[in-house]
């Protein structure tokens, strides 16, 4: 397997809440806790979890776009061509001038609002091209990018409100690709799209990975991944701010090791549409120990969720993958 482009280890994000926060008394949103994963060139890692599990915070945290009061700890080592950078500690200047858009790009959530409404799409795309890759013919490069994501160059002359949801999604993808990034973070790129468009967007990201990018696909749509095998390489399942299971997508989908992954698959049409009882905990109020077993005490043995059990390419919390209860 190729060397990672981005290695995230023990990433935690906390937002202090309420008035007690200013007095240092520990109330906080636990948006992400001890999250570790690696993104490799040519591969797509899908990060799935229910809404509100904290997954969307990850992309913003990696690009350091969170509000100033967020407390981020851990490491995120970018080791593509160019100097190695820890995204979480690098000076803001380095991030602005050499990382964002150029080495690590973001495909933002809700494409329609991610574009400035009063300027044409072409103006914004050409502006990004001009700033990220000075010296190229902006117009020509913008047209190339449009074609690459499946837009007609003429579509670029529209204003954002004149785009359909699918077109807006392709525009923000084109914007993300403008700086030839080595890592692409896609934050819920399929939210709000209907099924053909979801599949199309995922295929587009697959193509981006095949061209050599390392892609992180953050999504709640496990069904789409199951529908189109081979579109994603690796899978990470997040529950209540922690990753509970990671591994090759095919293997995890075929034989989920963690009870939560199994429950997620069971809730899909192919799995019988069995709803998951209870509801995910609020991130302000996580139970001590394993959050999943606090919700489903009858879901089999658990060691408290504090340790990660690794078995080859697969890893789980609570108990070893496929292994006996501990």
């Amino acid at each position, binding site marked *: 397997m190729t060397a990672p482009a981005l290695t995230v280890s023990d990433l935690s994000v906390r937002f202090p809440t309420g008035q007690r926060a200013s007095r240092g008394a520990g109330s906080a949103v636990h948006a992400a806790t001890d999250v570790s994963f690696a993104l490799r060139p040519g591969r797509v890692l899908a990060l799935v979890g229910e809404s509100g599990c904290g997954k969307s915070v990850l992309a913003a945290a990696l690009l350091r776009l969170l509000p100033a009061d967020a407390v981020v700890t851990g490491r995120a080592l970018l080791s593509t061509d160019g100097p190695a950078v820890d995204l979480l500690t690098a000076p803001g200047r380095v991030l602005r001038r050499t990382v964002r858009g150029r080495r690590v*790009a973001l495909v933002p959530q809700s494409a329609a609002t991610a574009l400035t409404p009063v300027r044409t799409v072409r103006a914004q795309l050409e502006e990004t091209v001009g700033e990220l890759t000075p010296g190229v013919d902006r117009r020509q490069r913008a047209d190339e990018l449009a074609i690459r994501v499946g837009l007609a160059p003429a579509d670029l002359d529209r204003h954002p409100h004149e785009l359909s949801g699918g077109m807006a999604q392709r525009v923000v993808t084109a914007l993300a690709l403008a700086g030839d990034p080595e890592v692409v973070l896609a934050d819920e790129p399929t939210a709000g799209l209907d099924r053909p468009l979801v599949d199309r967007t995922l295929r587009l990201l697959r193509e981006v990975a095949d061209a050599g990018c390392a892609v992180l696909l953050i999504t709640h749509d496990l069904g789409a991944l199951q529908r189109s095998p081979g579109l994603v390489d690796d899978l990470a399942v997040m529950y209540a701010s922690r990753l509970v299971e990671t591994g090759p997508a095919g293997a995890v989908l075929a034989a989920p090791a963690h009870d939560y992954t199994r429950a997620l698959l069971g809730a899909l049409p192919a799995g019988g549409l069995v709803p998951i009882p209870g509801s995910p905990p609020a991130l302000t109020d996580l139970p001590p120990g394993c959050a999943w077993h606090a919700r489903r005490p009858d879901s089999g043995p658990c060691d408290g969720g504090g340790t990660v059990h690794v078995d080859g390419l697969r890893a789980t919390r609570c108990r070893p993958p496929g292994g006996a209860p501990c």
Partner: protein
Amino acid sequence: MTLTELPAPRVDDAAPAAPRPPRVRWRAAGRLARRRLLFVVPVLVVVSGGVFAVADASPFDPLAGYLGDRYLTASEQAQARIADELGTGRPWWQQYGDWLGGLLTGDLGVSRSFGQPVAQVLAERLPWTLLLTGVSLGLAVLTALLLGTWSAARRGGWVDRVVTSTCLLLQAVPPFVIALGAVALFALGLAWLPVAGLTDAGAELTVGQVARHLVLPAAVLAASQLPWLLLNVRQSLLAALADDAVLAARARGLAESTVVLRHALPTALLPFVTLLGARLPELVVGAVLVEEVFSWPGLAQAVVTSAVELDFPLLAVLTLLTTAAVLLGSLLADVAYVLLDPRVAADG
């Protein structure tokens, strides 16, 4: 709580209608202008009619206004003859009708306080008022944009704190107090600039003279309008800086100046255009006070003169003119909004 199959809001991917050419925006702006003009005319008729009605109810004899000091000495026959000539004895709506008729045929009457036809007073004074208000507005808008953008982009910094508190203080000072303070400090105390007038006494009307005399009144008028404009720019820019689109622009690796100036500011400026239209009455009020304090020979000063001397023909025309200017200004601002915001035109 299932993970996936809550039906997502469907977005139709069929491409919407082709991009709207600028022509469509102009047409939408034209429609708006026509609709608003339909409102302007009745307001003007009511306002000017109102002036006549109020004048009729006032205890002042219009003859006194017309004759001035001679009123006391004129015989009753003479008074009656003049009243007959002027038509002041008739009901106010008939006088108003005559006045409107005169207005439409270009006869605005004679101003007693200036001893000139009203039309001539307007022609002589309007350019000076336009010069003063134009320069002030330009100055205020430019400063508001520069400092407002700076304050918002460096929120909480010392520039922001100084600028914001200065504005809040300035909001509490009426224009004529700013004007008096500026005269006391810059003209009398430091003797940098002339106290009043268009030129030094006896000096010829040259560009240099006018420019020197323009500095203080223009700066004062600009300062009296600045706080509202600046705080508005700052506030809308702060809101725009929190937009998804701005966050996305920043995530793309665009320079911070590009993010602020080309993504946040264009969105933030839309409400600013409307505010400019809404602030026009205040600009007029400020101009009246500033022209009065600095003896600037413009129309706004003529408002005060005609009011103090009960110069009714001039006062009525000036009221009408000011109201029309304010209405057209806010109309212009709204039309500009339609032209600037592509989303409005799309709604038809």
